[in-house]
């Protein structure tokens, strides 16, 4: 019984982390039609900045805020300087599909290697800001702690805030319009490029949050070649695709679904099935609903 409850809790918590990453990927996708592999790199860099802040200011929350701001800033710079140049040079042909992916992959490698050169490859650690000891109910300790509660809440808050932004504000409308039909949006007076950069900035902040929150949740160790960040990106991407890449709700649902399925398979079947399960889940979802859980069958194809 408690194994079941714990498995659900594990699934929800890891699902929340994947959701944060998926939200970031969906944001960039919706505003630029680019899958941003550098997301992991930017999250890594932001988390390092957060680590430095913790060393200086001794406050995790302040560091989290600064990391998110830094993440937003880095993403904005990447978009306005890097991606815009890229799109100007590469607008048609088969390269158009592949170039952004490759470019962002290159950026990921650059950030990692750069961090390694300047900061060194040794592990540094980020301690959790709140206790990571599980809550206890009638003698049994759950796989759910204040830290994990924070993570889940963060994902929820972010999703809510972004949904409100997208559906109820002018900026949100501009974001959606710029992604859907840049020419018409431009005609309507929307500064498409700037809005797009804003989308990237928000994604950068979300990615930074994912990194800062996941690091103390995992082993607590942070290093430039943490495999954890790459895996986070891959699983976040799978979560986003499951969710349909079109809506933030989809990203959250996709993340939760992935987290829960993985948790159950690992606990009840076998610990070595991690990677296969993610793949099989994706295949099943795409077979049943090729546009993802919340995707819409749309005329425009990427």
């Amino acid at each position: 019984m408690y194994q079941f409850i714990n498995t659900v809790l594990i699934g929800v918590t890891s699902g929340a982390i994947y959701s944060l990453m998926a939200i970031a990927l969906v944001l960039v996708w919706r505003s630029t039609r680019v899958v941003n592999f550098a997301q992991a790199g930017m999250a890594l860099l932001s988390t390092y900045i957060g680590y430095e802040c913790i060393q200086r200011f001794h406050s995790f929350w302040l560091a989290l805020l600064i990391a998110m701001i830094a993440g937003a800033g880095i993403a904005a710079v990447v978009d306005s300087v890097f991606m815009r140049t890229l799109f100007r040079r590469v607008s048609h042909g088969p390269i158009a599909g592949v170039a952004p992916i490759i470019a962002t992959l290159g950026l990921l490698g650059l950030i990692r290697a750069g961090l390694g050169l300047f900061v060194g490859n040794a592990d540094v650690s980020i301690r959790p800001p709140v206790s990571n000891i599980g809550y206890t109910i009638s003698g049994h300790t759950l796989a759910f702690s204040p830290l994990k509660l924070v993570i889940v809440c963060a994902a929820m808050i972010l999703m809510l805030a972004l949904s409100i932004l997208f559906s109820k504000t002018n900026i949100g409308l501009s974001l959606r319009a710029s992604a859907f039909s840049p020419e018409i949006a431009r005609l309507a007076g929307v500064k498409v490029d700037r809005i797009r950069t804003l989308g990237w900035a928000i994604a950068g902040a979300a990615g930074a949050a994912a990194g800062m929150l996941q690091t103390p949740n995992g082993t607590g160790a942070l290093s430039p070649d943490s495999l954890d960040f790459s895996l986070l990106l891959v699983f976040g991407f799978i979560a986003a695709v499951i969710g349909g890449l079109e809506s933030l709700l989809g990203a959250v649902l996709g993340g939760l679904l992935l987290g829960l399925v993985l948790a159950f398979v690992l606990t009840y079947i076998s610990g070595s099935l991690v990677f296969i399960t993610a793949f099989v889940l994706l295949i099943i979802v795409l077979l049943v609903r090729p546009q993802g859980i919340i995707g819409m069958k749309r005329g425009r194809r990427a």
Partner: protein
Amino acid sequence: MPRIKSTNFTRLLFFIVLGVALFLLGNRVDELRVYQGATLAMYVIAISSIILLTGYSGQVSLGHGAMLAIGGYAAALSHEHLGLPIWICFSIAVLAAAAAGAVLGTAAARLSGPYLAGTTLALAVGLPSIANQFPILGGEQGLLFDVGAPPARLGADFTQYKWYFWIAALAALIAIWWLQNILRSRYGRTWRAVRGNEVAAELAGIHIGKSKTLAFTVSSGLAGLAGGVLAMTISTVSPSAFPLSLSFSLLTGAVLAGVSTLSGVIIGALTLVATPEIADAISRRLGNSENVTTNLPGLLVSALLILVVLLVPNGPVEQWRKFRARSLHEVTHR
């Protein structure tokens, strides 16, 4: 018609000459270079499969490493359990991967851009670990794939790595020659038509789904051959031989080569093999501190990649052609 025939013959001649040149070269260089040559040949085959899929057919696969894995495992299994000669094992590798590609391609035809990317990514991550579940696939430590020592009549000095180089180079020459044929055939024209404008192609009577699936199948078959060659050079197949970074390296090589044309494939493969070497040499000059040696290769490759994508996005070959066309244009339109 006669013109095409003679061109075909000329191309065949060219490949034979290239083969002889490689043979002579293989005798002159030391063992490390020969081993790198085998790896180079493998990359040539693998990158060409990406160029076919993405450059000519417009589909993006983030996980072509999985196709290499299928080919590699097929070759190893048929060698270990059925005891078949090496060339048959390689052929089985091609067929197995092509079959998988046909299946994936049919599904892929239904998926658009990022969904296809996501699926292939998950495949690359998930497929190798399937080996852990079935003991016949050897688990984490994998299977042995020993193509055997070079034949005795080549002499006692003929090293194992040189033998790999011969086999790999021959496979690459045959693969590229065959691929060039296909690309210049009706199928190649169909693919380029679909890539250019799907609606127009369909109006012209081309079946989009079939065309794309065929491209996927052929591309996967080539990847399977590359997988077999890769397995040969490291004498094993295991999940860790086909990591996600392999798929990304192939994409990188394809972009460096110029994804829309086959001519640059050697450049892409060469860069993949040479850059770590150059990085190593540079870091040695810079004093060999641990930090530098660990991170410099990655830095160089990533920086190179970004530069190429920004400055020469269509690949050096296309860029060169455009440059020549433009200067020709300028000269004739003075």
